[in-house]
């Protein structure tokens, strides 16, 4: 399957082509070129998936993973070397499909959405760069390759968020996104360093084949009461948490919505943000040897899920709502991974569930974003207040959006129901507490999604005197329709057959008690939303007023951003950087200058020696001589 190399090479070539030629290319040509490249890429990915999943299973019933391509890129030590290669196993192939699909949709969609924008060519170049990086990330054969592409997706994300670089908020958001994830990557890097030092390898295959290596190699080594292995894995998870916007590193994601909406769909909903989930899944066998880290992952995920869901309930910017919903959904996946305690098919159910949810979520969340994009395109605003009653003007968008909402709310038969159900089952099996917790979150999800839905499409009839919203062009609706279809059918894919924690096929069967509960909760939430938001009324305001403190806090995202702002500006800049800069200029540099000043000063003070008087000279001469004589007599004799 050597052709898989082209899945990476093609977008890279597109990036270089579009990036270097830039404005020398007509925007249209650039868009079409990029889309065609992506189309080929998608085709190749599907081909790969087909070939991969249809290949014979081995004796254990596992689909054997493959490394069709691997070259040594940089050698550090005898054991440690970065390879660049392609590693195909169920999850990476699954990811290939997800990424190429969503990316292609976004490419097509953008032809319409970005039409006439300044820097259209640049936009496609960046999209290609992102696709390449993301694809490279998922097929990485070793953790360092992953890190490389991890950084690259980070920078593509930075570039795309800052696409409207004249807009200060976009610039700030791009900076924030990059720096926060960079900070998380620091943890990732240190984690890699620790892990690789003890296991003497970066290679995923080797790492997962012998997951206990780190325990045996680092035997006894502890730091602050935790074993080195725990630290390493926790730090690696920190990297993942940063990319996947887990609490408290989530702050960049809502702001990242400053980028063009298709970009949000691609990067900040479907693909890049799940990199953290993917990372944990990739190293899952290793995580299994440190249950305390898995517990940490569960906790972080659960808190994030609830937090994001609550915040999402009160946001008024539709993209923000979607962003928090994304955070919350990713948290679901993370929790699922956290509760999967080993590689047994049943106790490790969470693994499969997580991947499944990743897959379905990518589709419907992309759909949501693209739909939101279409809406924004139509009304030129992100604010709910500017919307309402759009169902009449934008039927296709409306329907597809509704499908997506139902999917995310977990209403059967849409895909979200199946994957979320698996997650809740897995969580429930592990711990009832987290199970109930996550069910509540699922309810909240349904609530805020339908709040969003109703506020956009129902609520009131827009005043259309000056501007009539109209349905998006075909380039934009086609992807919507396609993704809606996928959302409808994806739940019936026998996902467990293909992806499971140990590779053996797993038959998904609904746990009806859990499923029923979640459906009931979701429906209740939807009804509540319907009651509140179907028609324009005063109830929401009244409720908000009734819970003013909570509402405001949630609206301000529980002041996490303010805390960050305080830490960065007041502490990092104000208490560290500025004092250091001052210290450098005045103390260190001052010391150096002081040498010069002291020299000058001494020089000025002793000028009197050279008084110009012969007799003074002679006096100094004779006294000098006598001193020399006396001192020498004292010291030498």
């Amino acid at each position, binding site marked *: 399957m050597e052709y898989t190399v082209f899945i990476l090479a093609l977008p890279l070539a597109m990036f270089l082509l579009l990036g270097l030629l830039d404005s020398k290319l007509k925007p249209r040509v650039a868009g079409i070129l990029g889309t065609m490249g992506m189309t080929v890429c998608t085709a190749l990915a599907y081909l790969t998936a087909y070939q991969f999943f249809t290949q014979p299973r081995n004796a254990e019933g596992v689909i054997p993973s493959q490394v069709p391509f691997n070259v040594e890129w940089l050698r550090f030590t005898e054991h440690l070397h970065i390879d660049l290669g392609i590693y195909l196993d169920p999850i990476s192939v699954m990811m290939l499909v997800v990424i190429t699909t969503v990316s292609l949709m976004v490419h097509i969609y953008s032809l319409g959405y970005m039409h006439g924008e300044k820097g259209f060519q640049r936009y496609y170049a960046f999209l290609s760069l992102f696709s390449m990086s993301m694809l490279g990330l998922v097929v990485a054969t070793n953790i360092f390759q992953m890190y490389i592409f991890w950084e690259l997706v980070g920078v593509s994300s930075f570039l795309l968020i800052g696409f409207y670089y004249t807009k200060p908020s976009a610039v700030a958001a791009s900076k924030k996104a990059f720096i926060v994830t960079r900070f998380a990557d620091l943890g990732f890097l240190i984690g890699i360093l620790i892990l690789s030092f003890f296991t003497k390898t970066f290679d995923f295959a080797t790492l997962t084949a012998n997951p206990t290596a780190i325990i045996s190699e680092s035997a006894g080594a502890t730091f602050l009461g935790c074993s080195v292995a725990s630290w390493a894995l926790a730090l690696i998870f920190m990297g993942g948490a940063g990319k996947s916007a887990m609490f408290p590193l989530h702050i960049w994601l809502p702001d990242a919505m400053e980028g063009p909406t298709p970009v949000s769909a691609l990067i900040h909903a479907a693909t890049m943000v799940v990199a953290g989930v993917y990372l944990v899944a990739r190293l899952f066998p290793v995580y299994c040897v440190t249950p305390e880290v898995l517990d940490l992952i569960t906790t972080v995920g659960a808190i994030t899920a609830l937090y994001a869901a609550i915040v999402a309930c009160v946001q008024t910017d539709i993209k923000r709502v979607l962003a928090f919903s994304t955070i919350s959904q990713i948290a679901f996946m993370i929790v699922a991974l956290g509760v999967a305690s080993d590689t047994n098919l049943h106790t490790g159910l969470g693994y499969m569930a997580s991947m499944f949810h990743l897959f379905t979520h990518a589709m419907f969340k992309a759909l949501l974003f693209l739909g939101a994009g279409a809406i924004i395109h139509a009304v030129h605003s992100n604010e709910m207040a500017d919307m309402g009653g759009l169902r009449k003007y934008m039927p296709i968008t409306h329907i597809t959006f509704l499908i997506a909402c139902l999917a995310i709310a977990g209403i059967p038969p849409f895909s979200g129901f199946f994957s979320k159900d698996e997650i809740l089952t897995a969580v429930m099996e592990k711990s009832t507490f987290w199970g109930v917790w996550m069910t509540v979150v699922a309810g909240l999800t349904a609530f805020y999604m339908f709040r969003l839905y109703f506020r956009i499409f129902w609520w009131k009839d827009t005043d259309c005197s000056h501007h009539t919203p109209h349905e998006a062009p075909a380039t934009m609706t086609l992807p919507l329709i396609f993704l809606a279809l996928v959302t409808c059918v994806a739940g019936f894919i026998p996902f467990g057959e293909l992806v499971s924690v140990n590779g053996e096929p797993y038959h998904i069967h609904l746990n009806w008690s859990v499923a029923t509960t979640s459906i009931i909760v979701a429906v209740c939430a939807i009804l509540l939303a319907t009651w509140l938001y179907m028609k324009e009324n005063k109830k929401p305001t009244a409720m908000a007023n009734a819970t003013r403190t909570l509402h405001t806090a949630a609206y301000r995202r529980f002041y996490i951003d303010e805390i960050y702002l305080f830490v960065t500006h007041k502490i990092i800049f104000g208490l560290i950087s500025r004092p250091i800069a001052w210290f450098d200029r005045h103390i260190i540099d001052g010391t150096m200058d002081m040498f010069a000043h002291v020299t000058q000063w001494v020089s000025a003070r002793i*000028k*009197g020696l*050279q*008084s*110009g*008087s*012969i*007799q003074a000279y*002679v*006096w100094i001469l*004779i006294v000098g001589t006598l001193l020399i004589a006396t001192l020498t007599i004292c010291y030498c004799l």
Partner: protein
Amino acid sequence: METPMIYYIVLSLVMFFAGVYGFITRKNMLMMLISIELMLNAVDINFAVFNRFLFPGQMEGMIFSIFAIAIAAAETAIAIAIIINIYRHISNIDADNLDDMKY
């Protein structure tokens, strides 16, 4: 020679350092020159005395004294020429007036 050598040496020391004192404290350059003569003269005594009391077999010290006297004369000649030169320029020979260049 009943008078011990050290007496002579002390005598020369007194003369020498009287010269030093004079050189440092006299304003008139000719008086500084006089002080120098005292110092040189003291050294001559030293040579002669050492020669006589310690190394009477040769006359290195005495000869040195003779040469020293000759050189002192040369020094004086040059010095007086320079003093006169100064007198031409500033109409006095006060050493304190020679401090235009300093620091």
